[in-house]
C-alpha cells in the first residue's frame, strides 16, 4: 500500500481529478495549502505594507492506493497537472503501513478502495 501526496497548481485540480477518475481512482482528499518552491512569489502591497510574497497558493491531494494503482495515479496527476513552467508541483510517494475502513472495520488492501 502506498500514500501519495501531490502538490499541484490550484487551477489544475479539476483536470487532475478527471484524469484520476478515468483511471478508476476515486478516493482522494483535497486541501488548499500555501507553499514555496523555486517559483518566485507575487509581492503584495497594502498602503505602506509590502509583502515579500514568498508563499503561493497550491492544492494538495492525498490518495491511498494499492501497489497496482501507484503508477496509474502518478500518470494521471502528471497528465492533469503538467506545465512547462516552474511551479507545476511535486508528487511524493510514501509507504502506507495500515489502512482501516471505519464503517466496517476492514483493514489492509481491501480497505483502500
Amino acid at each position, binding site marked *: 500500500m502506498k500514500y501519495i501526496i501531490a502538490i499541484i497548481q490550484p487551477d489544475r485540480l479539476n483536470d487532475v481529478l478527471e484524469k484520476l477518475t478515468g483511471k478508476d481512482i476515486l478516493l482522494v482528499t483535497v486541501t488548499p495549502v500555501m507553499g514555496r518552491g523555486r517559483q518566485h512569489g507575487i509581492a503584495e*502591497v*497594502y*498602503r505602506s505594507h509590502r509583502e515579500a510574497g514568498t508563499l503561493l497558493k497550491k492544492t494538495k491531494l492525498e490518495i491511498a492506493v494499492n501497489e497496482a494503482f501507484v503508477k496509474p495515479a502518478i500518470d494521471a496527476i502528471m497528465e492533469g497537472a503538467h506545465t512547462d513552467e516552474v511551479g507545476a508541483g511535486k508528487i511524493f510517494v510514501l509507504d502506507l503501513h495500515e489502512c482501516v475502513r471505519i464503517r466496517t472495520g476492514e483493514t489492509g488492501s481491501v480497505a483502500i478502495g
Partner: protein
Amino acid sequence: MYARKSIAGRSVVYGSALGCLIAGGASGQSAPAAGSVIDSGDTAWVMISTALVMLMSVPGLAFFYSGLVRRKNVLSVLMQCLAIVCLVSIQWVLVGYSLSFGPDKAGLIGDLSWTGLNGVGLSPAPEYASTIPHQLFMAFQMMFAVITPALIIGAFAERMRFLPFCVFTLLWATLVYDPVAHWMWGVGGFLRAGGALDFAGGTVVHIVAGAAALAATLVLGKRQGYPERIGPPHNLPFAVLGAGLLWFGWFGFNAGSALAANGLAVSALVTTHISAAAAGLTWATMDMIFSRRPTILGIISGAVAGLVSITPGAGYVSVLAAMAIGGGAGIFCYLSVVWLKVKLGYDDALDAFGIHGIGGIWGALATGLWASKASNPAGADGLFYGNPGQCIIQMKAALVTLVFAFAASYILLKLVDFLLGLRVDEHAERIGLDLAEHREAGYTMLE
C-alpha cells in the same frame, strides 16, 4: 455642523466679537423663540442624518477597521467600536452635551446646567437650530461625539487592553472632545467667535482624532514585529463594505450638518460626494505611479481621505473646489501613509493620523482657500476669493486644535498607562486580542 442659515441673530459674522453671538439666544433654554417652529422636513432629514452618522460608527468604521487587522484581532476592533457607541452615548446625555453645547464659560467650555439633558426638550434651541427639536440636535451631535474616539482605534489596534481603553475613552470624550466641540461649535466658543469655518467637523472630529491617534502611537509603541512581520489585512472585502457604509453615512455627517432640508444641505451633499470620488481616483493613480497597480485598499482609503477633507468645507465651497480638495486629499494622505509614516517609523496601525489627521488639516486649510460666500452667504470668502485672512484663521484653529488634542491625549494616555497599563502583554499580543481579551474567536476553523 451647525446651520449656517441667515436667520436674524444667528448668522456668524466673520471676525465678530463674542457678544454679537450671545445676543441670539443666550440662555440656551428650550423655550421657543418667536418664529421658531418645528419644520417636519428639517426634522425628518436630521433624524435620518442622526441614524446615518451612527451607521458610520457601526457597522461602517467597525468593518472598515476590522477588515484591515489580522484575523486574530478582528473581534477586538469590533468590540472597541461597539463599546464606544455605548459608553460615549451615555456620557453624552449625562455630561457631554452640556459641556460641549451648554451655556458658555469663558469661551472654553459649556457649564453643567444641561446635565442629564435637563432643559433639553422637544422645542427648538434657536441658538443652534431653530426648526428642529433641541433633543434632535443633541442626538445628532451625539453621533459625532461617538465616532470621534472610534477613529483613534486605528492607531492602537491590535495591542491595547480593553478595560483601560474604556477608561481612556470616557476621560478623552469629556476632557478632549467636549472642549474642542465647544470651542468650534458651542455658542460662545472661542474658535467659532474668531470666525473659523468648520461645517461638519474637520477640526472637531478629524484633527482631534488624528492628533490623539499620533499620541497613541507614541505612548503605546509599535506592535511586535512591526513592520516586517505584521500580516496583511485579513478581510479586504469587509474593509470595502465598511468604506462604502462610511461614504453613505457621510451624507448625514456633512449634509445633515446643515440642520435643515434645504439648498445648503444639498450643496454639502454634492461637494461631499465629489470630493470622495476625486480622492479615490487620485489615490488609485498614486498607487499606479508608485506601485504599478491600482489597489482596492488604495481607492477606498482615498475615498475616505476625500470625505475627511471636505468635512470642514462641505457647506462653504463649490463643486469644482470639492474636486480639488479631494484631489489634494488623495495626494497628501497617500504620501503621509506611504512615505511619511515609513520614514518616521511610528506604528499607526490603520493610518488614523495619516488619513484623519492629515486629511483634517488639509481640509481646514483648503476651506481657507476655497470658501466662498457665493456657495454660502453665511460663511466667508477664502484666499481664492480675495480674502487671505480666512487662511490665517483656519491655520490658527487647526493648530490650536492639533496641539491641544495631541498634548491632552498624550497626558491622558500616560495617566491611564500609569494607573492601569495600556498595552497587552507579549503573549496576548501573539495569540491575538480576540482570545486574550474577549475569549472569543472571530471565525471557526472547524465546524
